[in-house]
């Protein structure tokens, strides 16, 4: 069970990155390749709030969320909005992520910094396995976020509008939807969530400037396994990647963990090219 808990909590981290990718993808059919770097900044801000400024946990969470939201909003204005096509946005968001990594190295250095967690620092025994409370927090957060987003996109009018935008942005405009504003809001929300996620993943991954690139790849693999545009798919993909990685490292050796993850990715894509929960996009011509 301990191995399963470790896999699920690691998978939750990947799932949280995939959720961030998905929010922007659903809203604008584009990818924000700086998403994982936004989470990395969130982890650093959480570290600064906790350790440098000695703020209470709630203030640290709010600080991380606001700072990363502002950075995401800046990214939308300078690296996304001025760029006309989605392909070029892949490059500009990747560039923005690289800038964030460089800035983090300049400000906090290259050594991993331990981000404290508000809960117990001791592992607890649960159903025969050992698990840290922050790992439970990560798993719960990923599941709650996905369920929350699902309910938002089915029950709230703005949620329906975001889904409609992803299918046909022009038709959404003709229903009175301010597509630009909603796409901007989606970016800002991913920043907000990335700040929150940074607070939760920091204790597991540490705050380190290379965190972004490590998470970006696995988050993308989680998304591809689960299916682009599907939040439940991102969750399932994240857990799959985490569990495979932990089990491969345990039974085959750590050098096989990445190999096993990509083998599973290939297997899933061969059987279901759209991913586990992905749908084939229909287009009327």
């Amino acid at each position, binding site marked *: 069970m301990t191995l399963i808990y470790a896999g699920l909590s690691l998978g939750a981290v990947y799932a949280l990155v995939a959720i961030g990718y998905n929010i922007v993808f659903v809203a604008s059919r584009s990818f924000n390749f700086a998403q994982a770097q936004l989470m990395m900044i969130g982890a650093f801000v959480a570290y600064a709030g906790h350790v440098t400024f000695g703020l209470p946990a709630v203030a640290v969470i709010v600080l991380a969320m606001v700072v990363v939201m502002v950075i995401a909003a800046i990214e939308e204005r300078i690296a996304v909005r001025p760029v006309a096509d989605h392909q070029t946005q892949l490059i500009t968001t990747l560039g923005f992520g690289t800038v964030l990594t460089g800035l983090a190295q300049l400000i906090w250095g290259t050594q991993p910094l331990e981000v404290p967690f508000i809960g117990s620092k001791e592992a607890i025994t649960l159903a025969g396995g050992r698990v840290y409370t922050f790992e439970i927090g990560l798993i719960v957060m990923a599941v709650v976020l996905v369920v929350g987003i699902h309910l938002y996109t089915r029950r709230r*009018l703005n949620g329906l509008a975001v889904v409609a935008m992803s*299918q046909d942005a022009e038709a959404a405009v*003709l229903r*009175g939807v301010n597509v630009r504003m909603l796409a901007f809001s989606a970016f800002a929300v991913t920043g907000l969530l990335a700040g929150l996620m940074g607070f939760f993943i920091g204790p597991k991954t540490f705050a380190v400037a290379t965190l972004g690139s490590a998470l970006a790849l696995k988050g993308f693999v989680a998304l591809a396994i689960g299916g682009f545009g599907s939040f439940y798919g991102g969750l399932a993909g994240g857990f799959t990647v985490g569990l495979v990685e932990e089990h491969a490292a345990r039974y085959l050796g750590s050098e096989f963990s990445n190999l096993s993850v990509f083998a599973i990715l290939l297997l899933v894509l061969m059987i279901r090219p759209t991913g586990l929960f992905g749908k084939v996009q229909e287009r009327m011509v």
Partner: protein
Amino acid sequence: MSDALLSVANLATGYGDLRAVWDVSFEARPGQVTALLGRNGSGKTTTLRAVAGLNPLHGGELVYDGRPLAQISAHARVKLGISYVQEGKRVFREQTVQENLLLGGYSLGLRRRALEGELARIHELFPILRDKRDSPAGSLSGGQQQMVAIGQALMARPRLLMLDEPSGGLAPSVVAEVMARVAELKASGLAIVLVEQAVEAAVEIADHVTVIDVGKVVVSSPVAEIDDLERIKDACMGR
């Protein structure tokens, strides 16, 4: 003073810098149907897109309810009461009929529960949509999708309804039903601009006919003054 709700004067528009419409003028009045006719590629759809705010204004004037539209964004025009039903049944295919209709009322700024009260109006006009409320819009027949598209537009409580080839790709019996609903909407006081390839069906419910060819108006006449439909058909063929 003109009683027109929409006045289009010497419109020039296109796609980016590419001009497709050079000089188009027409008006739309409450309780009347203005038919825009013409062959494929004549500029009818481009004209509607410009009125909706999707295409840039290169020249001329668009005035709606006494207000110039040039500086008003597309989504804000919906709030003013301009609803545009695009050709090709552009519904949100993955969302249910009910969700499609609710999205139609997005511009009203109401809460979802209040909007659900508005659905009765659409269900009265298209009863089949009540039965299909939980079906994905993409799973419906072409005629039913057209009803969803028109229903969406009507959810916004428009004063001006622009319909782009509502009969396109539909069986004749379905075309008759859609046109009957358009006639009802006209009787309810809506100003309607109808783009159609089916000349006879359009003229039957229209009050004014404007024929466009190569981005310019070649015929503009009240239907009551048309004594020879062949002349209109010839103009629509570019002859």
